């Protein structure tokens, strides 16, 4: 009766074989990312809110794909769900709210005076013209410093939102977060950098063929196995 629904023990599942023996890890659960009860409640509350208007979201989407358009091998920021991420993060880290909302309005205002349309209704050429004056902090006119600050924030959020998705990580080429057996820098990379492992140092390093053999030492602390 006391035995609650705590999930089962070490569910060992074989993963990619490495040196020695296969690498063991445990089962994961796609529905959870390790939240506490309080955090779950907070997530639910934040998810239920909405912050940006449809017009604001449409403008964010345009900005997303100007910042990271699709390439021959990778999708655009909107395809990676970046506008949805920006909507969430503005609700989650509320210090983003006023700078983003105000910045979008600043940009629309700038567009209205320049082209008599809001930013999202401008042509791509016009949009790029507007971005060119705020996208390069070191070259921008001090007159548009507020626009520079807004665009810097937007660019940061678009990039962070993109590179934290499967699409972005594949484009970046990050190869980790998977069970493996680290056995040093690949030889060709060492060669390219003109580096080599020192033999005396390597003697102190793990022999990955013996990683699954239980460690035993002599009385002096010398590893025997």
């Amino acid at each position, binding site marked *: 009766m006391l035995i*609650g629904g*705590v999930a089962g023990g070490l569910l060992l599942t074989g993963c990619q074989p490495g040196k020695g023996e296969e690498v*063991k890890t445990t089962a*994961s659960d796609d529905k959870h990312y390790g939240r506490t009860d309080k955090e779950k409640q907070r997530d639910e509350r934040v998810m239920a809110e909405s912050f940006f208007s449809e017009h604001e979201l449409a403008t964010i989407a345009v900005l997303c794909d100007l910042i990271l358009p699709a390439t021959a091998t990778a999708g655009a920021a909107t395809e990676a769900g970046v506008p949805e991420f920006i909507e969430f993060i503005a609700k989650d880290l509320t210090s983003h709210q006023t700078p983003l909302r105000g910045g979008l309005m600043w940009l629309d205002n700038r567009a209205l005076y320049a082209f008599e349309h809001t930013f999202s209704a401008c042509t791509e050429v016009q949009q790029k013209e507007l971005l060119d004056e705020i996208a390069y902090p070191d070259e921008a006119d001090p007159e548009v410093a507020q626009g520079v600050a807004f665009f810097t924030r937007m660019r940061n959020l678009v990039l962070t939102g993109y590179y*934290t998705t499967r699409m972005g990580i594949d484009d970046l080429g990050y190869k*980790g*977060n998977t069970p493996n057996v*680290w056995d040093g820098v690949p030889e060709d990379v060492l060669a390219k950098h003109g580096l080599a492992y020192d033999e005396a*140092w390597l003697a102190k390093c793990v022999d990955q063929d013996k990683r699954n053999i239980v460690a035993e030492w002599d009385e002096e602390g010398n590893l025997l196995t």
Partner: protein
Amino acid sequence: MGEEQRAKGHGAWSMEHGAWGMGHGHGAKGEGHGAIGNISVYFLLTIHYSLINHPSSHHSITPSLHNYFSILRVTTEIMQIKKSSKVYDVIIVGSGAGGGMATKVLSEAGLNVAVVEAGPFFDPADPEQKTQMKWPWESPRRGAGTTRPFGDFDSAYGGWEIEGQPYTRMPGTRFEWFRSQMLGGRTNHWGRISLRFGPIDFKHRSHDGLGEDWPISYNDVKPYYDRVDKLIGVFGSKENLPNEPDGFFLPAPKPRLHELYFIEGAKKVGVPVIPGRLSMLTKRINEERGVCFYCGQCSRACSVYADFSSGTCLIFPAQKAGGQIDLFVNAMVREVLTDHEGKATGVSYINKEDRQEYQLNGKIVVLAASACSSARILLNSKSKQHPAGLGNSSGLVGKYLHDSTGASRAAFIPALMNRETYNEDGVGGMHIYTPWWLDNKKLDFPRGYHLEMWGGMGMPSYGFGFNPNDLNKYLGERIGGYGDQLRKDVKKFYGSVVGISGRGECIAREDNYCEIDPNVVDEFGVPVLRFNYTWTDHERYQARHMHNTFEEILDAMGGKILGDKPGQDQDYGLALPGQIIHEVGTTRMGNDPKKSVTNSFEQLHDANNVFVVDGGPFVSQADKNPTWTILALAWRTSDYIVEQIKKRNI
């Protein structure tokens, strides 16, 4: 890295918090007991004991007495203190490194143990609690530190501020206090840097006239360090350095690419580098725990138990071995209860779930709530026999609080641009490190520091891609922009920034302390801590020296050093007190009851059945991370407790 390790901020160069090793909720699961409301309480308690004493898997242990007490409350419907008739041999307060070790050793000696933990049960193998191997998109905030200061996947439930549990500071002073309330405490996310204190560290006053010597020497602790190494596992290498004792090491992982650059750079400027010493299993140590699979995510706690966390490596095995262990979770200890002779009789705690007050009886109380939390409990345990708080006849409980010093710097290494990507996650921390290598007699500050280094192609999380091409200024290329160029720049700079952190010794001073704030209580009505902590030029000049070292090494690596060297107005870049999360010293040990709170066996001078096995009894911090010494001393104290019981001295 210290436990603070992962705090690299969310700036341009922060990769995944945990990737460099820099960086809830289940309590008692049983519900619906109301159905048995009419059965007598005594009967319920009897059933309960038989269940929780059963040496079943650790997953089933979580339910606690509160469930039964809750029924009692429903029946009586008045607020009253819930008392149990059971008498434990030992009550252990806290389940981190010290509490976990005491739980293991004392339960294995056959004692009947209660472990009282302020937070919920935690098992990193539980799919609902596991964060290891999660991708950034599995968090809607992509791992941002909105609710957890080291990011969404960090396994510490708590942080610098905990809602409803404030602490205060004396005007003009700073202290940052990191708490993690969960089974295993901060051991679930710490940096795993596992260093022995050396012979000089225990007797530093004899060497430089500052601070105080410990009442014990390295030789007293060595056998326990040896046992801890073998029980828990730590990789490293035999180096025969005078104040960096070797141990029973597992073999080290090979250095990563940026670490090879560091070794080369350091060599050029005469700074030695050796393999890191961290408690991850690069090699099997028993059949119960897994072997490291190099995800680099130790800050998330390991689901195959291949790194050291107190729950997975001490408490669960103790339960599995059939120990008589009752685990109370979400139970915040208010005070240690004492009798008319001033001896402890148990503890009172608040069940966070029903906000009711409970009492447990114990013949011995072992405090392991963390240096500051244990001091708070002692100071709040006032009685006729202990008017200034339990153990505080010297007035020193809370005094001599000290944290490690810290400073950090980073550089852009042009030779690491446009890297070929491959998996270099490695262990969740540095594969190499630099122990203190200089002679303070020739320097303008008295104590040493060690170096930790970080970098690499970590997993992106919130903050990755910020200011993506600011480094173009070193290449004379354009900063900012939009479009395809941004992708090229992100890839160009990925893995090209490295950093170094210094972690040093601060000399303990009586005027750095925590005490009870006379005006403030937490949400449970318990008086909170007020901190008073300042740095001196000892620490400031040490930080200045750290930055000089960082610059020399980073420059020798061919790096473009980022940011300006912090000046006097910024304490030379010295981290705020508490930020390194190595706070110790609040119940320091000594032979003279007027100058110390505990004796050399971490036993209160004022009550011989109360012990403190966290960082509190440390006399000095050393330039080493404290956990391995907490573990060794907790084992030594636990052996002493068993021996004293046998001799009928307690």
